[in-house]
């Protein structure tokens, strides 16, 4: 299209120079002041609101106690004498390291179990195409739509019957029900993109299905596996209601449950330690996320698009 025609329609100001670049789309038609108001300002406000709670969390975690509760004497938005007292208390006077370890252990174990089951299931549904595979695929999608909030009551009786109550195994075995539907669905999408011809060649050369899966499909699906793994890991870390219901002793708790239950004594909230605890509990995930942003996004969008 010609710059002139489009310029007259959209941008009567006529800021459209000769810099037409196909990759830019039509954005060059907008002038800078206009973009400032329609794009950068609202984006800035939304980003500010989305990120402010974390700033506030981090700031509270390093503020000395007297500054926390006096908003008039000290400027609440900044502190000049940060302290690591809250973190010190967290690490050496509570069982926080233990809770962190519990969370990590449960999340890793549940994720590993789920990924192994999902790889097998997704491969069978997409490539073995056994009788009724489509229906099973649909059922797994439905399982994705069953939220933990309606399952935790009967599950607690089940967990009790199996003798798993108050043990990490209760979580390791129940979390896969949240993770398997999601990761199976995601991996099905990945497996579908791997050319079928590769598999046919291997079959002709005498490879078994198991060899095909481990030597051909899995190496090619590594990005998908990473996506599924970190997303499942995050979901485990985030899970609350099962951990709240199935665990009772302090030393078995996961970080989210422990923070909510163990850190509040009476009416005097220990805000500094609370925020330090919340920050320390979020950091591992944020660091993991920082390394795998693209995988993360593809996991999130892939599961929805399929």
């Amino acid at each position, binding site marked *: *299209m010609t710059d002139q025609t489009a310029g007259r329609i959209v941008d009567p100001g006529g800021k459209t120079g000769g810099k037409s670049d196909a990759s830019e789309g039509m954005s060059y038609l907008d002038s800078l002041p206009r973009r400032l108001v329609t794009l950068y300002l609202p984006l800035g406000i939304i980003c500010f609101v989305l990120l402010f709670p974390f700033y506030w969390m981090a700031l509270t975690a390093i503020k000395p106690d007297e500054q926390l509760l006096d908003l008039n004497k000290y400027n609440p938005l900044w502190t000049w004498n940060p302290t690591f007292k809250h973190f010190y208390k967290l690490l050496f006077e509570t069982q926080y390291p233990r809770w962190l370890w519990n969370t990590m252990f449960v999340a890793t174990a549940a994720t590993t179990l789920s990924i192994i089951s999902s790889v097998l299931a997704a491969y069978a549904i997409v490539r073995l195409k056994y009788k009724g595979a489509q229906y099973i695929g649909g059922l797994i999608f439905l399982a994705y739509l069953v939220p933990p909030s309606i399952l935790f009551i009967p599950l607690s009786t*089940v967990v009790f019957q199996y003798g798993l109550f108050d043990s990490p195994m209760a979580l390791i075995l129940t979390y896969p029900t949240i993770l398997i539907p999601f990761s199976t669905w995601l991996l099905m999408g990945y497996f579908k993109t791997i050319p079928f011809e590769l598999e046919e060649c291997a079959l002709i050369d005498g490879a078994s299905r198991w060899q095909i899966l481990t030597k051909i499909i899995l190496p090619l699906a590594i990005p998908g596996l990473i996506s599924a793994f970190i997303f499942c890991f995050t979901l485990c870390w985030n899970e609350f209601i099962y951990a*709240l219901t199935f665990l009772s002793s302090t030393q078995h708790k996961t970080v989210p449950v422990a923070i909510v239950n163990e850190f509040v004594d009476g009416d005097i909230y220990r805000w500094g330690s609370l925020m330090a605890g919340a920050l320390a509990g979020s950091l591992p995930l944020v660091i993991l996320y920082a390394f795998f942003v693209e995988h*993360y996004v593809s996991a999130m969008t892939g599961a*929805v698009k399929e």
Partner: protein
Amino acid sequence: MADIAVAPGRKAAPRETTAWDRLKVNRNWLGFWFMVPAMAFLILFLAYPLVLGVWLSFTDARIGRTGNFVGLENYEWLSEDSNFWLVVFNTVFYTTVASVAKFAIGLYLALLLNERMPFKAMIRALVLIPFIVPTVLSAIAFWWIYDSNFSIVSWGLRNLGLIDGNINFLGDVWNARWSVIFANVWRGIPFIAITLLAGLQTVSPSLYEAATIDGANSWQRFRYITYPLLTPIIAVVMTFSVLFTFTDFQLIWVLTRGGPVNATHLMATLSYQRAILGGNLGEGAAISTAMIPFLFAAIMISWFGLQRRTWQQG
């Protein structure tokens, strides 16, 4: 094709194909074994509890005591409980307002992020952070932000001269409702924005160029190009959003535990309170089961959303 694989060419003396060899390459037989781990988990810890939950709702089970069948007694009891109906109202209100707000702001944010700008990848990564951080931990930050005496929001508004006293965020009925809705919207926006952004990126720019030549303004371009092409993904995303807002538990539990005077109790928190804290498993299960029709409605919407995509493609 599958049979060829059974007779490896390397072996000198080809042997008879036994029944076991045939079974080893039978798709259904193999498929069954590949499905075993996933199915074991889903049947033992998802399907069975789901059925058990419905059964429990017809019994008077308490913690540590298997109940007897009491028919619809739990439901009758609930239908006469005004607290229960208040909670249903809360849940529907919470879900509706939060979902609409999340959708509107999420879509707006997705449209903004789809523009060309410097540091786009970094901004997109930052926007997702509220989704990464566990809900409970960010809810604790909100708890502090909503504190009745030391709230930074009250402080800010007071210094701007907009209010005189502190706002009692979580102590007043309607304030508490709006506060938890805000926290939920805050948590939900990134997911919706990023998934819709992925949908937006698949829309060809040439469509917009063609429409612009035909004289379409920006609203028309959105209404007649972006929105129709995005409908399928919107349907799926909103189904998930509605589903998980409706069954929300964590946020409420951390911020208000259902208070003040049950104003923010949702069905999930009420069932936890009655079943686990109150020990009344049967009644709690009845509340959970009462959520299923709503969830079913959400799933149907998703189903028809997906149907619509196949119509568009075909």
